[in-house]
């Protein structure tokens, strides 16, 4: 129950943050009845979801995504701009894979055994973890 409540509150906060998420011109386009460019991209909206319905779903998705980003340490000031810069399809993909998609970083925190294995594979030229290695071939 508490979890549900917290989720509702968080979603409400995120939704209000995102009320102005769409770029101004995209909102203008929606109001004017124009079909947005990204609506032409495959995959199109799921069957049965068109126009306003699809747009509403996309908005809710973005609110959810903003909440997930916030839970993962993104500052509130950044949420809106980060979510707004994604297309609907990208936002959906990011939401689905936010914890699995590879995150590029660097070589910190390797275990010692792994260190040795990677040192050898580095020298063989299969990997390139360490800047000081140079492969034998």
């Amino acid at each position, binding site marked *: 129950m508490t979890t549900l409540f917290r989720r509702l509150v968080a979603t409400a906060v995120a939704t209000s943050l995102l009320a102005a998420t769409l*770029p101004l*011109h*995209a909102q*203008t*386009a929606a109001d*004017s*009845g*124009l*079909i947005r*460019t*990204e*609506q*032409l*991209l495959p995959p*199109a*909206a799921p069957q049965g979801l*068109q*126009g306003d319905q699809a747009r509403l779903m996309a908005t809710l998705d973005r609110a959810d995504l903003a909440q997930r*980003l916030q839970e*993962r*340490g*993104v*500052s509130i000031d*950044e949420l809106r*701009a*980060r979510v*707004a*810069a*994604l*297309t609907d399809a*990208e936002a959906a*993909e*990011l939401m689905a894979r*936010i914890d699995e*998609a*590879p*995150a*590029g*970083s*660097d*070589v*910190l925190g*390797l275990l010692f055994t*792994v260190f040795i*294995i*990677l040192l*050898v*594979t580095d*020298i*063989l*030229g*299969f*990997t*390139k*973890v360490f*800047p000081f290695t*140079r*492969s*034998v*071939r």
Partner: protein
Amino acid sequence: MTSRRGLLRGGLGVATLGLGGCATWADPPQTQALAAAWPAGVPPRVELREVPFVPQTPLHCGPASLAMALGHVGIAVDADELGRQVFLPARGGTLQLELLAGARRQGALATRVPGRLAALVQELAAGHAVVVFLNLGLALNPVWHYAVLVGHDRDGREFVLRSGPVERDLFRWRTFELTWARGGHWAVVVLPPGRLPVSASEDEAVLAAVGFERAAPPAAARRAYEAVLARWPGSLTARLGLGNTQHAAGNLPGAAQAFEQAARQHDSAAAWNNLARVRAALGEAEAAREAARRAVARATLAEPQWLAPARATLAAVGG
């Protein structure tokens, strides 16, 4: 140090004798292909020395790589500021989609280029640095990493990368290919609107422009679509984008012209729909009804996904 390395190499040399017949020791396929057939028009040696070097702070290879690529096309940006825009703290890194979005927010398009070594050297020859995504470790113990490819050397079979703390990190072709393949052959070229990577496909160029439209001012997004249309005049999506960005900029006659061209060229219900709306806004009531009827007809015939908006448009323009 030298002697220890020599010892290691000696030991490995013995080990490799045992591996002699092993298939994994052969060069990976693209390295073989590049050695066998060098792409036409690409010089044997290229190094884009003018690409600025931004050494990464811990975990921040994504923002650092993006800052280098942006700096190379004249967009000076602080790597810490970029970090706030693309770094995902709980994951301890930067996701690829957010890197693309980060480029857009700085006024540039990040376009995927084909996952082929030949495409990478073609981009270098065109003066484009390439942001690549590598798994420097193994599939079981991935070490995900962004770096910027700035040079290649055909005779030495090496690539030059700005990578992490190293300004000129030399990768053998085969090592680069193996680590790049484990990163999914992901590579993007970051350019201001109006310029395109030489090797990008139409689909990827369109995707980059559409993503850019979300984050960019209409005038800049329009330049992105114009560049796509200059190379692929038959792109319906880019043509529609040209109209939408002009509409967003308040240029209704320009929007009408783009939508009309898209509608006539592709008989697209979406283009007829948008043409009807813009003609109505311009006060051309009869022409608007005609376009709206074409939108409904086309949607009924072949593009059911636009039937609801097309009917709404027809009703709105008094058809």
